[in-house]
């Protein structure tokens, strides 16, 4: 048997104090690992999934994983089950992680579910072992450029409701300051469209020179990538970069934190490198010009989207915008900022609702809505397009209709600026 490689540093220096680790490192496999590890080896030999093998069962992830609070799943359990020989590719565990990144925040061994999950899921998709509903979302995205299966030609139809100019780049024929990457749910979902209309009016009121790709835009593909369809992501990234490259603009502004993540970290690998901001980051410095006069005398709590907060470190911009609205009382939930709970929509969760239902006691969105109600909020403010629909459904299913409203920050701002 091969000798285990120590992963700990031989010598760590913390605040100037030397912490030698030589006396404490595991150089020889102990009795506990002297059984058949072939199943674990199969998983950790997949490129991207190596770090699953680093787990030393401390259980810190179990304490923070949003799925474990409603089910029986955490990275610690994934490792242990795999170590004991249960195939991850055939296990429902493989589809429960929402890639919320909370475990990675606390894991002392950097067991990285954000890389493990997409890598192993890709293998499962190849082997035809992915849940049917997820494959439908993949197929829709490949065929129509959006996971909802909506007609690609109608991608920009929402602009009619905006009743303000929303230039489409192919017709605009002039450079713009901001290329607004709208994304799928804000283009098609009824509640997503409400936020798009609000944002379009805010942009107009602020005199921003902006344009959208319209029917030339396709899904950014980031969640499909996390759900195991890397090839689809490649195709979408190449398409979007090709379309964006036709036009002149200074920066990209996105509605969707998942698109934000793609533009920030992934598209540059495909040659698509532009300055990109989430719309809350773009608007926050413009608060003084937004004419936020109409008060919202309500208790509002904010749900940090995983891909804006934990993944990309932005916690202040959305809060600054909310605090700028007159009479709005911003209350924080227990799980906020770095420790924010997850809506359940990331990493493919958006398209795995019935699958996940079989392995959880309640939806993550339902748990989150209950928390917002517990903190006495009248409005749950969100800023990720997955969330409005997820939380609104959860408000209904938890019997909180009339108690809690779900609003995109763009909607709250446009309301306060008397634009909607």
């Amino acid at each position, binding site marked *: 048997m091969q000798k285990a490689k120590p992963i700990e540093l031989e010598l760590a220096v913390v605040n100037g104090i030397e912490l030698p680790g030589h006396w404490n490192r595991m150089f020889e496999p102990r009795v506990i690992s002297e059984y058949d590890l072939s199943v674990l080896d199969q998983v950790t030999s997949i490129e991207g999934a190596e770090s699953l093998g680093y787990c030393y069962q401390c259980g810190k992830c179990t304490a923070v994983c949003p799925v474990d609070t409603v089910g029986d799943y955490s990275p610690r359990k994934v490792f242990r089950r795999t170590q004991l020989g249960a195939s991850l590719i055939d296990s429902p565990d493989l589809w429960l992680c929402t890639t919320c990144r909370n475990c990675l925040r606390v894991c002392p061994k950097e067991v990285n579910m954000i890389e493990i999950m997409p890598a192993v899921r890709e293998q499962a998709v*190849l082997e035809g072992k*992915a849940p049917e509903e997820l494959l439908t979302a*993949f*197929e829709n995205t490949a*065929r*129509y450029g959006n996971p909802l299966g909506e*007609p690609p030609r109608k991608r920009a139809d929402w602009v009619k409701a905006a009743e303000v100019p929303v230039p489409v780049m192919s017709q605009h024929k002039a450079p713009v300051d901001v290329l607004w990457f709208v994304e799928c749910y804000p283009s098609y979902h009824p509640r997503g469209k409400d936020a798009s209309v609000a944002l379009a009016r805010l942009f107009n009121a602020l005199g921003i020179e902006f344009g959208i790709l319209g029917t030339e835009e396709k899904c950014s593909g980031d969640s499909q990538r996390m759900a195991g*369809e890397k*090839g689809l992501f490649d195709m979408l990234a190449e398409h979007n970069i090709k379309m964006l490259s036709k036009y002149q603009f200074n920066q990209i502004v996105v509605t969707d934190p998942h698109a934000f993540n793609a533009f920030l970290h992934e598209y540059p690998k495909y040659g698509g490198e532009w300055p990109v901001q989430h719309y809350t980051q773009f608007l926050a410095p413009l608060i003084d010009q937004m004419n936020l006069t109409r008060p919202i005398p309500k208790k509002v709590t904010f749900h940090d989207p995983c891909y804006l907060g934990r993944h990309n470190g932005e916690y202040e911009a959305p809060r600054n915008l909310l605090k700028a609205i007159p009479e709005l009382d911003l209350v924080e939930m227990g799980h906020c900022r770095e420790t924010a709970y997850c809506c359940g929509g990331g990493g493919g969760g958006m398209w795995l609702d019935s699958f996940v239902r079989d392995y959880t006691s309640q939806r993550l969105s339902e748990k989150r809505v209950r928390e917002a109600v517990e903190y006495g909020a009248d409005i749950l403010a969100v800023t990720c397009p997955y969330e409005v629909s997820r939380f609104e459904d959860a408000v209904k299913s938890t019997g909180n209709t009339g108690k809690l409203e779900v609003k995109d920050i763009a909607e709250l701002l446009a309301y306060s600026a008397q634009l909607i």
Partner: protein
Amino acid sequence: MRILVLSKSVPDLVEELALDEDNGELLHDDMTYVPSEWDDHALEEALLLKEEVGAEVTVLAVDTGDVDNMLFTALAKGADHAVKLTGDFDLATSNRKRAQAIANYLRDNTFDLVLSGVQAIDDIDGQIPAIVAGLLEWPHASVVTEVSIQGEQIHFRQEYGGGLQAEFSAQAPLVLGIQAARKPPRYASIAKVRQMMKSSTVDEIDASADTVPELEIRRFFKPVAAGHAEMIEGDPEEVADRIITILKERKLVRG
């Protein structure tokens, strides 16, 4: 066992159909085309047979433009060969003519079993498999499920009214119109499809353009609605009141 799967692309109903109402013509070039759903089932059934008895699966499309992606997807799913019949074809080419080209191909190439979707949205009486079988004087069955290979025999099922099932056996060669595969059609990952585009080829075969007896489409049109449903607006109480009034007016409630 050599299986030929017929596949065609049909207008995508997710987008609105492009119809020139004045001339009663479908504007084929303005519509998006997708693989016919039933053909996906025929392919799945063929691939299941391949897994069970080691059949060799060829997928065929008449080149009506833009069928390559569909053929490469079939290869990515596990088909062994892809064939495109080229010639004087376009999206408006009649099923009769397509069937003729397919039958000609089958005269020159040996296959034991031809599977096709039972119908397509632009062919609601399932013409192609029946005409192909007729031209070749091969046996044919339509609305078929559960195909299996039992030695020299091909077994399959049909469902009749009243929930009655029939099981058939036939000798190859044979043409079947597949209603549904035993499993949902498999997914081909995009990476695999793209890899197929790089690593494999579609055989192009020149198909002679026979003149065939054809029907003439006089016009396409949207049905004219005879009457309209009344949408009852208002809050639940108002809606309930209105429903009760209507029921009373029509004497559908007592008292």
